[in-house]
């Protein structure tokens, strides 16, 4: 009854193209931000940070990245794990080579390095499309992980072949390493997630975003209208890889602390992120967050119920988790191919008319 445009008068085009046009949407958005920035840091404990919130934010950044490439620009990629590995290893090399450099800059620079690698592996997209491109990006996945395992320079010749993060702080607050406080871990991921989501929204509503979507929907018409396809596709690869690289850097330095390329950045991670954006909603920023939340929270929830309450065997619970996630993905593909974000949109559409639908 309260959710509608009635009584809101837009008097300029900037007002009309606001992200949250309806007042209730705007308040909801501010409420979420308030809870995330002002309440959660004071209530968070170690379990919530390491099992739920930090992985959720990191995967949300990765989904935002893949969603730019696949959801907005229409280029399927299975190289997400490989690009996350580039972000993680660049971050490690930067942190160990320049100990005085602030970790924030290390993470952003890792994103930029990943963007460069992304452009390189995006070049085939100019010639090949669809499934064939997906196979070509698989090459980047396997090649990059192989590279980081084989060249000892990347892991500083450590005996285990793993990389582990040194302790680094921002404004005197420790954010990486084993002694980090949960709220600091959470806050740095939240800041990156918020900034990147905001940037993603701005990019996708402007002329660059329209170039990407035009390329996705009808590339020939896009070219005739004046879109340089080469530039559009490569910029999507670059910016998508930038996001994924930052996700990889955070995944390694803030979340896990120590990683091994094969385990942490394997093909499974590429599929995980792809499932996130499919379940969440292709081409939707909210969808990236919902998808990441779903894929991170669902296993945790299932485990808590099955093992915690019903006291099942842990291995059995894990297998049941695989089965149910797989089942749910099939259900989503059949019943709501546009993902959870579309359900949210439909709900809002219904709410506008409620309770007098005629």
């Amino acid at each position, binding site marked *: 009854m309260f959710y509608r445009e009635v009584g809101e008068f837009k008097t*300029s*085009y*900037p007002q009309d*193209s606001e992200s949250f046009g309806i007042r209730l949407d705007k308040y909801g958005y501010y409420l979420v931000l308030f809870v995330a920035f002002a309440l959660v840091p004071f209530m968070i404990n170690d379990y919530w940070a390491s099992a739920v919130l930090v992985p959720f934010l990191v995967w949300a950044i990765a989904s935002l990245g893949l969603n730019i490439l696949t959801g907005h620009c229409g280029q399927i990629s299975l190289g997400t794990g490989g690009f996350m590995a580039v972000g993680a290893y660049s971050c490690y090399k930067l942190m160990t080579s320049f100990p005085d450099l602030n970790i924030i800059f290390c993470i952003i620079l890792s994103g930029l390095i990943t963007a460069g690698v992304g452009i390189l592996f995006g070049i085939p997209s100019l010639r090949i499309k669809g499934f064939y491109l997906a196979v070509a990006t698989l090459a980047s996945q396997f090649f990059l992980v192989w590279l980081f395992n084989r060249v000892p320079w990347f892991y500083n010749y450590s005996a285990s072949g793993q990389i582990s993060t040194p302790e680094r702080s921002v404004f005197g607050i420790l954010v990486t390493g084993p002694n980090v406080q949960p709220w600091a871990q959470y806050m740095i991921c939240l800041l990156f997630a918020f900034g990147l989501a905001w*940037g993603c929204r*701005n*990019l996708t*509503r*402007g*002329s*660059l975003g*329209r*170039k990407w*979507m*035009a390329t*996705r*929907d*009808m590339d*020939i*018409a*896009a*070219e*005739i*209208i*004046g*879109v*340089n*396809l080469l530039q559009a596709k490569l*910029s999507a690869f670059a910016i998508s890889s930038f996001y994924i690289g930052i996700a990889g850097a955070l995944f390694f330095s803030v979340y896990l602390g120590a990683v091994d390329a094969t385990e942490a950045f394997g093909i499974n991670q590429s599929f995980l992120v792809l499932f996130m954006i499919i379940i969440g909603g292709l*081409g939707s920023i909210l969808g990236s967050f919902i998808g990441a939340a779903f894929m991170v929270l669902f296993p945790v929830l299932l485990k808590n119920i099955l093992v915690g309450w019903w006291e099942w065997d842990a291995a059995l619970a894990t297998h049941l988790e695989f089965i149910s996630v797989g089942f749910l993905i099939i259900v989503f593909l059949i019943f709501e191919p546009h993902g959870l974000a579309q359900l949210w949109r439909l709900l809002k559409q219904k709410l506008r008319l409620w309770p007098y639908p005629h």
Partner: protein
Amino acid sequence: MDQTEATNRNDTLMDIVKVTLRFGGVKALSDVSFNIQRGEIRAIIGPNGAGKSSMLNVINGFYTPQEGEIWFEGKLRPRLKPHQIAYQRIARTFQNIALFEGMTVLDNMMTGRMIYMKSGLLSQLAWWGKAEREETENRLIVEKIIDFLEIQAIRKTPVGMLPYGLQKRVELGRALAAEPMLLLLDEPMAGMNNEEKEDMCRFILDVNEELGTTIALIEHDMGVVMDLADRVVVIDHGEKIADGQPDEVRNDQNVIDAYLGVSH
């Protein structure tokens, strides 16, 4: 003589000289020459498979002819990519609607303004400065075209949900958003009922008269062509068989033969 020649050159927007286009062994166009004058409506007609659409594709650079020259605004056009030709302000619509289905009407038309939007990555990322200013300026022009085409009510509807006739109109709007010097219409009336055809004719005439846009169109509905066009060029089997005023063309024996067939 020299005087008229000079004024002719000035009035000519595009001069197509002896264009030949081959696909392997197939000759889609052979030795076709005609010109398009500033401010006119130029129709290209011919039976199915005659090479009309190929001609349009040559004009907007989607195909590069093996032989021949294209003069645009008095300059010989070098070999360009289609997206570069868009910057010379040649816009077109397609025979089968080629809108961006996932985007709203407004976004589709804003994409038509692509060639005027030049803000940098950082400005767009922060939605500040040039990016925001540019968006508003271009929105103003798009809104004028929305008013002109009377599609205010569907501004924020995804185009995939619109009926066929409206989609055709939005596609015209997207082409107009580029403020083209030369507008190419590939069968703008295909598949429409009479009422929709009349609407579309009115829009085409208004574009031509009010905005002063030069139009080249392909159309199968002869009634429409004869009423709209200032001059008509007829293509059959990739060759030009007639060129002139609608009345001349209508009574040309070659044209009648091409359409009705001749006994051999």
